């Protein structure tokens, strides 16, 4: 027992002492464990803490984690540029050469990701302090959020493949808990289960990939794996490594909601809006991109895998963008837009534009979280209604929300000089520069860009412009509307005691925490792009360079002029898309309804997200359910009971037959005695010879 506790105590002593020079990863441990401690404090003391205190504990934990991430950054900056990585850990479950260790590892890529995760999480926690007020599960919410951040950091900082899988699984569990947060809604619990099961598929794929990597390279430690990947004699484009790449992609796609494992994301909007902002925009869904960047040598080795990733990423990009065009639920529009933007990142990573993808990951985190937060504010003003057809004219009633929403939407659309503009077009120009089949991918990206611009501003115009909705008028009069609290999907009456979302609604205009959080993100959405101006600033590229220098395409960098041309094209596309949206929704109101009437089938197709849910239901869910019924009715009854009943029937029949000999007829008995004796006598006579 003592041997078990010693390593844990040793590491605990690290923190107690503050600075222990022998463990270089001290700040990494603090970064990882602070959110967990926050979650434990909230969970174990959930009856003690008041709402205010719980919110403060939760938010403070993440701000502290952000501080620790900064400390890690400082630590790395103090190191030589080529050697900026730290590894530390203990044995977890090691046997027979399987080095299943609890190791954390951080380098430039991990620290960047950790900063994004903790930074945006901290702001979302701040937002939630106000937004979730009067929700009965307030403390539970912050506990789950903290646990989620811990899980995400575990994934990001994992230095061992199986620990990565553990982080992957925890994130899935946290996502499930948060999606089904309002657990009295059957639509929420169903969505949570769907997300969880798809996530498990990704988990299994990663375990198989981990096995194959261990089998080939005899280690599970990630830095060692990456180092070995440079050796052309050990890591070759064989079937095994293609399988590794494809399995890693399955895991990534399940987590990042890419086709074909994407159907859980729109349903995940059942969770409270801060959850959508944090998990389904900024962090969890980007884990797939992070995985591809982290394990990039193993994806690059297989051209088949790279092309598959690029193709599926682009397909997702287009499918999601077209679906977003017709959606009527505000959160779903933003969800599909997330799916689409991550398609950009995946396709970019597949094209080996890693730093560009990470750059877009960062800017996307800012503006998407901002969009969700603003949407939350609007939905609160609508008394819980999320249907954009019932909204309108909130510009006057909610000026702050309007401004930040517009900033977010324009950034998403790629309006010149905003951060999305720089990052999205950087991905596109790198992809274009790769040439060959990637030109088609880049073309797809441009098509996606115009669609993105269109649907982003569509949301703006539908929600904030036009005739004010009744709720907007109410708000102008200084009173927030209260909805009728019926679940639109199932028609059941909401149980407001377990949330949704409590008795009161909170809008940005009235809550200081929400304003601060949204304002910070709006500011970042505007300025964050300036770190990567082609030919001028290369902050992210230079920072991540040592991580990706072993990439085969490390030198495939488009020229500065090509990038500026790309930016020009992007600007034109963005403005065109915005103009079309303006024409459709402002100048020519009603034209979209006419299109819907003229093309009902196309509209239905897009509205139902290309009928993927329908397809999966027919191909997977129903056959398995039918198989279950078959097992129950047929196999259990005939095969299994058959054995029991068959055996007893056999014995009974045998007994019947034997019983027939007991006829009660004395003469028959006598005959058998005499006969038997004769037989025995004959036997002795014969054998005796």
């Amino acid at each position: 027992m003592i041997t078990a506790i010693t390593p844990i105590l040793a590491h605990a002593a690290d923190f107690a002492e503050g600075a222990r020079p022998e463990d270089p990863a001290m700040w990494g441990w603090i970064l990882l464990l602070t959110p967990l401690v926050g979650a434990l404090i909230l969970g174990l003391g959930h009856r003690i803490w008041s709402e205010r205190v719980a919110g403060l504990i939760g938010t403070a934990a993440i701000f502290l984690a952000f501080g620790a991430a900064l400390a890690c950054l400082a630590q790395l900056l103090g190191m030589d540029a080529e050697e900026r990585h730290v590894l530390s850990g203990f044995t977890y479950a090691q046997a027979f050469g399987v080095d299943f260790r609890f190791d954390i590892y951080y380098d430039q890529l991990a620290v960047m990701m950790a900063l994004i995760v903790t930074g945006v999480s901290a702001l979302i926690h701040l937002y939630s302090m106000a937004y979730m007020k009067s929700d009965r599960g307030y403390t539970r919410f912050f506990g789950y959020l903290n646990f989620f951040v811990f899980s995400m950091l575990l994934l990001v900082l994992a230095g061992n493949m199986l620990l990565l899988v553990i982080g992957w699984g925890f994130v899935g569990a946290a996502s499930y808990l948060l999606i089904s947060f309002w657990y009295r809604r059957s639509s929420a619990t169903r969505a949570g289960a769907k997300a969880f099961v798809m996530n498990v598929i990704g988990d299994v794929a990663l375990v198989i990939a981990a096995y194959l990597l261990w089998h080939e390279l005899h280690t599970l430690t990630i830095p060692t794996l990456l180092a070995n990947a440079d050796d052309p004699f050990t890591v070759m484009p064989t079937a095994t490594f293609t399988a590794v790449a494809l399995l890693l992609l399955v895991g990534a796609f399940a987590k990042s909601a890419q086709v074909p494992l994407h159907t859980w994301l729109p349903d995940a909007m059942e969770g409270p809006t801060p959850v959508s902002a944090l998990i389904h925009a900024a962090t969890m869904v980007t884990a797939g991109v992070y995985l591809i960047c982290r394990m990039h040598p193993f994806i690059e080795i297989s051209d088949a895998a790279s092309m598959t990733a690029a193709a599926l990423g682009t397909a997702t990009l287009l499918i999601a963008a077209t679906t977003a065009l017709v959606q009527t639920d505000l959160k779903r529009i933003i969800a599909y837009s997330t799916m689409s933007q991550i398609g950009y990142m995946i396709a970019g990573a597949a094209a080996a534009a890693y730093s560009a993808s990470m750059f877009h990951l960062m800017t996307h985190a800012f503006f998407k979280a901002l969009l969700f937060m603003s949407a939350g504010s609007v939905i609160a003003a609508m008394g819980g209604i999320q249907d954009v057809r019932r909204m309108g004219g909130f510009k006057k009633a909610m000026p702050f929300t309007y401004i930040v929403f517009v900033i977010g939407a324009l950034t998403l659309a790629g309006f010149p000089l905003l951060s999305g503009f720089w990052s999205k077009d950087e991905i596109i120009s790198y992809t274009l520069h790769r040439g060959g089949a990637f030109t088609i991918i880049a073309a797809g990206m441009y098509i996606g860009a115009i669609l993105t611009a269109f649907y982003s501003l569509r949301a703006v115009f539908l929600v904030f412009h036009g005739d004010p909705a009744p709720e907007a008028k109410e708000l102008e009069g200084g009173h927030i509307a209260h909805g009728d609290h019926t679940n639109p999907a199932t028609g059941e009456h909401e149980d407001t005691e377990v949330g949704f979302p409590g008795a009161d609604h909170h809008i940005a205009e009235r809550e200081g925490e929400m304003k601060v959080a949204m304002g910070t993100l709006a500011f970042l959405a505007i300025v964050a792009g300036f770190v990567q101006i082609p030919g001028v600033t290369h902050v992210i590229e230079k920072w991540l360079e040592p991580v990706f220098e072993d990439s085969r395409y490390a030198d495939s960098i488009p020229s500065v002029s090509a990038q500026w041309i790309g930016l020009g094209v992007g600007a034109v596309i963005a403005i065109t898309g915005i103009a079309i949206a303006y024409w459709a929704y402002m100048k020519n109101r009603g034209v979209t309804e006419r299109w819907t009437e003229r093309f009902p089938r196309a509209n239905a197709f897009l509205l139902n997200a290309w009928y993927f849910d329908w397809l999966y239901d027919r191909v997977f869910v129903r056959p398995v359910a039918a198989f279950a019924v078959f097992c129950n009715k047929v196999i259990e009854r005939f095969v299994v009971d058959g054995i029991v009943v068959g055996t007893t029937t056999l014995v009974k029949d045998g007994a019947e037959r034997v019983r027939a000999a007991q006829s009660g007829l004395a003469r028959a008995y006598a005959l058998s005695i005499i006969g038997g004796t004769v037989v025995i006598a004959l036997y002795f006579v014969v054998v005796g010879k």
Partner: protein
Amino acid sequence: MNISWYIALSAVLFSIGAGGLVARRSPLVMLLCLELMLNGANLSLVAFARMHGDGGGQIFALVVMVVAACEVVVGLGLIVALYRNRLPIDIDELDHLKDPQKADSAL
């Protein structure tokens, strides 16, 4: 004298007795047949005793006679009891040792 004759006679007696036992339905006749079988066995015992010059066979034959006598007493007693209780004196009708499911209600 050749012992084979005695053995043959014994076998004939035994077979007649056995055949009669199986073929006849009256308990009284079955008892007679049993006696016949026993006497056949006795004959062969005595013959072998004489052949080996061993008195044991003759003594055993006497024992058999005693047992036969006892058994006849019991058997005749059973027949008288059957007659007194107005039961059929037919061995095929007296099958109450069989499966009780098919037992008839007479008893």
